[in-house]
C-alpha cells in the first residue's frame, strides 16, 4: 500500500472541510478525484503536501508505512511525494533551474546519495524540458514569473519529470489549458507512468481523463468520497452531472 488515507477530518479557521475522507492508492495506480468546486479537492492535496494552517481533527494518513502527517513538507517531498499546484506560485528572483537543483540535491542528501554533478543535472533538465516541449529559455527564468496559465501547468509537470516522484498529486493540472497544451501536459504525465509511480489526478472536468486514463475514479463531495468506480464513472458523471450522483448518495 503506497497511500492510505483513513477517515480524514481537516478544518481551517474552525471550518471543517474534509469530513471523513478515505482513500487507498497502490503502487503504479492512477486515481482520479472529481468533484464540484469547493468540495475540498485542493484542501486534500494541500493537507497531503503538508501546508500549515490546517487542523487535522481525526483520521490518519500513512505513506509507505510512515505517518505522513508527522513529516515536514520537505521531508514528504524527499520521500517521493509531489504536488502539482492548482495555482503555481510566482517566485521572482528564484531561478527555475536553481530551484530544481536545490530540490534534487536535497532529495539526494536525504537518501544518503552524493550531489548530482552539474553536467548530468543539465542533461537531465534539458531532456525533460524537451519532453514537455518547453523552450530552454524557461529554465533560466524566475519560477513561474510572468508565465501564462498554461506555461505554469506545463512547468509543474516538467518539475515532476525532473524530480521523479513516487506519488504525484496533480491538482487541476488541466484547468486553464487549451486543447493543445492539455495534450502536451497529458502526454508528459503518460510518459511518466510506471509500475512504481502512482498518480492522484484532481480534476473538475472529465476532459483530462480522455487523455490520462485512470484506474479508479472517485467522487468527492462536501469533504467526503461519496462514490468510487472505474473510468466509466467519469463518463457517467459527464452525462448525468454531479447533482444526480450527490442526490443518489444522499438518498
Amino acid at each position, binding site marked *: 500500500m503506497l497511500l492510505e488515507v483513513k477517515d480524514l477530518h481537516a478544518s481551517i479557521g474552525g471550518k471543517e472541510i474534509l469530513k471523513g475522507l478515505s482513500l487507498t492508492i497502490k503502487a503504479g495506480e492512477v486515481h482520479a478525484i472529481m468533484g464540484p468546486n469547493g468540495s475540498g479537492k485542493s484542501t486534500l492535496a494541500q493537507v497531503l*503536501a*503538508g*501546508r*500549515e494552517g490546517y487542523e487535522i481533527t481525526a483520521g490518519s494518513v500513512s505513506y509507505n508505512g510512515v505517518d505522513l502527517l508527522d513529516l*515536514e*513538507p*520537505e521531508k*514528504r*517531498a*524527499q520521500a517521493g511525494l*509531489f*504536488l502539482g*499546484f492548482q495555482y*503555481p*506560485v510566482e*517566485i*521572482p*528572483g*528564484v531561478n527555475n533551474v*536553481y*530551484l*530544481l537543483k*536545490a*530540490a*534534487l540535491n*536535497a*532529495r539526494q542528501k*536525504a537518501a544518503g546519495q552524493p550531489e548530482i554533478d552539474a553536467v548530468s543535472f543539465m542533461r537531465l533538465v534539458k531532456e525533460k524540458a524537451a519532453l514537455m516541449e518547453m523552450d530552454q529559455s524557461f529554465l533560466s527564468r*524566475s*519560477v513561474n514569473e510572468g508565465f501564462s496559465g498554461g506555461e505554469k501547468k506545463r512547468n509543474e509537470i516538467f*518539475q515532476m519529470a525532473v*524530480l521523479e516522484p513516487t506519488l504525484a498529486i496533480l491538482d487541476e493540472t488541466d484547468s486553464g489549458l487549451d486543447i493543445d497544451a492539455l495534450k502536451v501536459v497529458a502526454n508528459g504525465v503518460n510518459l511518466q507512468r510506471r509500475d512504481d509511480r502512482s498518480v492522484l489526478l484532481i480534476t473538475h472536468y472529465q476532459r483530462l481523463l480522455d487523455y490520462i486514463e485512470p484506474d479508479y475514479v472517485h467522487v468527492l463531495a462536501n469533504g467526503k468520497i461519496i462514490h468510487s468506480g472505474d473510468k466509466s464513472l467519469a463518463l457517467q458523471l459527464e452525462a448525468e452531472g454531479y447533482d444526480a450522483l450527490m442526490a443518489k448518495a444522499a438518498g
Partner: protein
Amino acid sequence: MNLDPNNYRAALANTLKQDADAGHPEWLLPIRNEALEKFLKQGFPHNKLENWRYTNLAPMSERSNASVAQPAAVGDVIVPVTDSDSLTLVFVNGMFSSQKSSSTSVPAKGIVSNMAAQLDTDGAEDWLRNSGDSDLAQLNLAMTNDGAVVQIPDNIELAQTIHIIFTNTAEANVFPRVIIRLGRNAKATVIEHHISNAACVSTAVTNISCGEGSRLNYQKLQEEHARSFHVAAQTIKLAKDSHCDIVNIDLGAAIARNDLRILLQGSGAEVGVNGLFLVDGERHADNHLHLEHQAAHTRSRAHYAGVMANKGRGVFNGMIHVLQAAQKTDAALNNKNLLLTQGAEIDTKPELEIYADDVKCAHGSTTGQLDAASLFYLRTRGVPQQVARNMLVQAFAVEVVQQLANESLREYIQNSVEQRLNELVAVIET
C-alpha cells in the same frame, strides 16, 4: 553633544601643515578655515532636525570629537577583488596609496587620479568648493586629505571600470572625497567602494556632474566594519540628455547614512537608482534620496530594497520633487522591505512634491515578511525550510545586485550579499 572646537582646530592646523608641506595651492587655506568654522557653528546634526529624526549621530560625534586627527597606521589592507582591467585608486586610512593602485592610463586631457595630485589643475578649486549642502559637507571640506578625481573629456568612452577604494585599517577619522565630471557624450563606469576592518569614522562627500548626452554608471558599495560610522552624501547633476545608472549598496557599519541628491537639470535627462540595505544586530542604515526634476521631459526610476533582522533598523526617505518647469516628468519611486525577525524595524517615507501639472509620478512602499505561499511551494519541492528562506531572501536582494555593471565586481558583491544574508537568515527563529 558639545563639540570641543579646539580639537577640530588643532586637527585642521595639522591638515593645513600637511597642505603646505605638500605644496598645495594657497586657495585651499581660506576655504578650509571657513568650512571648519561653518561646521563648528552648526555641529553634528541632531534628532530634532526633520531629516535626522530616526538617525542619531551622537555616538559618531563623540568618537569624532575624541580624536579628529587621522592616524597614519596602516595594518592589513583589504583590497577587494577587481578585474585586472579596472583602473583602481586605493586610499588607505584617507591617504592615497600609489602602491596599491593600478597605474592609470587615461585619455588625453582626462583625469583618473587622486585629488591631492591634481590641485593645480584648472577648476580644482571648484571641485572643493562644490561640496554640496549635506550636513557634514563642511567638515569633509575642512579635513579631507585626499580623494578621487575622475574627469572624462567630451566624446570619450572609457571601457575600463574605475574602481575607487577607500579602505580603513585603523580607528581613523576619514574624509573621503570623490569628484566625477563627464564631458559631453562621455561614458564611464565608476565604483566608489568603502571597506574597512577597523572601527573607523567616515564622512564622505561625492560630487558628480554628467555633461550633455553622457552616460554614467555610478555604484557605491559600503562594507564598513561593524562598529564603524559611515555618513556619506552624493550630489549628482545631470545635463540635457544625460543618463546615469546608480546602484547603492549598504552592507556594513554600525550607523550608515546616505544622502543621495540627484538634480535632473537638462531636458531628456534620465536616472535609475537601485538601492539595497541589509541591517541586523543593532545596526542602523538610513537612506535619504532626493530626486529633483528641474527640467522638462526628465525621467527617474528608483527602487530600494531593505532587509532587516534582529534589532536592525532601516530608514528610507525618498522624495520626488518636480519643479514647475519640469513638465512631462516621468518619475517612479518605490521601497520594499523585508522584516525577518520581530524587533527589526523600518521607517519608510516615500514623498512627492509636485509643482508641474503635466507629469507622471508614482511612489509607494511595502513592508512584510517572507511570503508563506512561496515558502511552502519551495518546500513541497523538497527544499529544506532554512534553504528555502535563504532563497527567498536572496531573491529579494538579487534584483539590485544584478544591476551592477562590472561582472567581477557583481560576483564579488553577490558573494558579500549572500554571506550577509546567510547570517541574517540564520537568526530567524523557527
